[in-house]
């Protein structure tokens, strides 16, 4: 992961609303070409974090830097590098798509000559080319969401922040938006929040889980899938040392009198050998499956009950 070109950085963000702490001491760094997924149960502080990152809410403590520019010291300069799609797309229902996007382009400082081209390319990217002359209020929720997305990327900002970008879209549109986000992620930095775990898994390179305002997990998306365990069960179980001695097996843990959990060496897959050996020695193989921790399991583990904050940095 490239760490030389940091586009957005947050240091120790804290936000209190009266006595309630919405976000506590949250730090993040995002390099060019990274897509970060922000996960968390309802009310965990995702939207508050995004509002702080985009200058809509001043943090009680901490600071945000966009391309090294402090959002507090020079908000205008920092915001030029930013595109934001809030939870509710900020569209004016009485304007047409073209009028609205032209206004957004002007608001983000695109020169009037370049405005038409910017509007066209944003419309093309978001699949809005056919509805340019329609009034936004008459469009479906999915299309309004796309207009909101077009607004966030119209000035091609280095940092794009998307709060639940696929809410209200049909499955085909979701696929298109995901493709678009992936494309954006090549040249820009993208932060997106979602409730939909497969979506994060499909799009993001990195995932952060926030619970009760605190960062409880931060890792590359494949880090938790990288080291699967193997569950094996036999009718006539051998000793665990017999399994542990096999090539590709790092250790064997006894689950009950018939089942074991094996840690694997990623370089050698021992499954074939285990089957052969079980047949040869008459162990009576009953069960053989990979136990990969899914994002969902991690999510549930970290966000339900009182779990000590577990930090993992795979970067």
């Amino acid at each position: 992961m490239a760490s030389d070109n940091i586009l957005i950085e947050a240091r120790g963000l804290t936000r209190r609303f009266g006595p309630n702490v919405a976000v506590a001491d949250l730090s993040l760094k995002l390099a060019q070409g990274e897509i970060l997924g922000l996960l968390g149960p309802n009310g965990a502080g995702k939207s508050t974090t995004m509002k702080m990152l985009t200058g809509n809410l001043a943090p009680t403590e901490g600071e945000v830097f966009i391309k090294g520019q402090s959002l507090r010291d020079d908000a205008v300069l920092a915001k030029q590098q930013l595109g934001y799609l809030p939870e509710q797309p900020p569209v004016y229902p009485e304007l047409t798509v073209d009028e609205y996007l032209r206004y957004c382009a002007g608001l983000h400082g695109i020169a009037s000559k370049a405005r038409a081209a910017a509007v066209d390319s944003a419309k093309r990217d978001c699949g809005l080319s056919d509805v340019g002359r329609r009034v936004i209020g008459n469009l479906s929720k999915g299309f309004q969401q796309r207009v909101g997305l077009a607004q966030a990327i119209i000035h091609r900002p280095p940092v794009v922040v998307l709060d639940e970008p696929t809410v209200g879209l049909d499955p085909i549109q979701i696929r298109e938006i995901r493709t678009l986000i992936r494309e954006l992620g090549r040249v820009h930095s993208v932060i997106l929040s979602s409730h939909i775990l497969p979506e994060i898994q499909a799009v993001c390179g990195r995932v952060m889980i926030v619970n009760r305002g605190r960062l409880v997990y931060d890792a590359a998306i494949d880090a938790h899938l990288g080291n699967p365990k193997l569950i094996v069960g036999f009718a006539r179980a051998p000793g665990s040392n017999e399994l542990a001695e096999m090539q590709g097996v790092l250790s064997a843990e006894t689950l009950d009198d018939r089942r074991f959990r094996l840690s694997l060496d990623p370089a050698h897959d021992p499954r074939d050998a285990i089957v052969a050996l079980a047949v040869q020695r008459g162990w009576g193989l009953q069960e053989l499956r990979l136990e990969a921790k899914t994002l969902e399991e991690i999510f549930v583990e970290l966000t339900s009950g009182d779990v000590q904050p577990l930090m993992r940095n795979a970067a």
Partner: protein
Amino acid sequence: MRNTLAIAANETRRIFVSPLAWAVLGVTQLIFGYIFAGAVVQYVRNSDMADQAVGVSDYVGSGLYGSATIILLLILPLMTMRLFSEERKSGTLTLLFSAPVTLVEIVLGKFLGVMVFVLAIIGLLALMPASLLPVVNLDLGRLAAGLLGLLLLTMAFASCGLFISSLTREPTIAAVGSFAALLVIWLLKMPASFDSPFAPVFDYLSLISHYQDLISGLFDSSDVVYYLLFTALFLWLTVLRLDMERN
């Protein structure tokens, strides 16, 4: 500056695509026309007194512009109520807050946007006495002072309405609130007539007392300064209010 104009242009566009703006323009025009026609008819009936005590510019112009203040007091809260409260309610305020524009630019843009609409009303008000130009000698200076007074007065109305709109997320509450606030400031004229040491203070603070000079053709820079200060104060309060919102 460019951002202010972009926001103002968008605001004006949104005002003029809304049916409310056209309804307000139509209704006010009807009322103004009724008052204007009535004044002309009355003046003609008393034509024996014409050009002696009261001139036509005075009677028709001042009569029209004087009643216009009350109608503008009623309609401007309706025009300013949406400016911030509706944007807050529908979440579009986020667009402005995340864009590389300052709060001052946002507030000035909104203010200018609504003033374009007000200028349309004032322009139509200017045209009514002007329609008499081919047949009557009008005191143009006096009418101009009255129109300038209307412009300054509506600037004060609009800035106050803008501020109240930034306080709430319900447009109707913003409308009621700004109407009440404007009426109270207007009615400071009442305690000003009591015999008390503060009477001149109330008189100075009242929105309408400064208009009376202008409408009678008396251009006093202190009246102009009053309206400009009033407007600047409320625009500044709006900026402060929006800044508070982020903190």
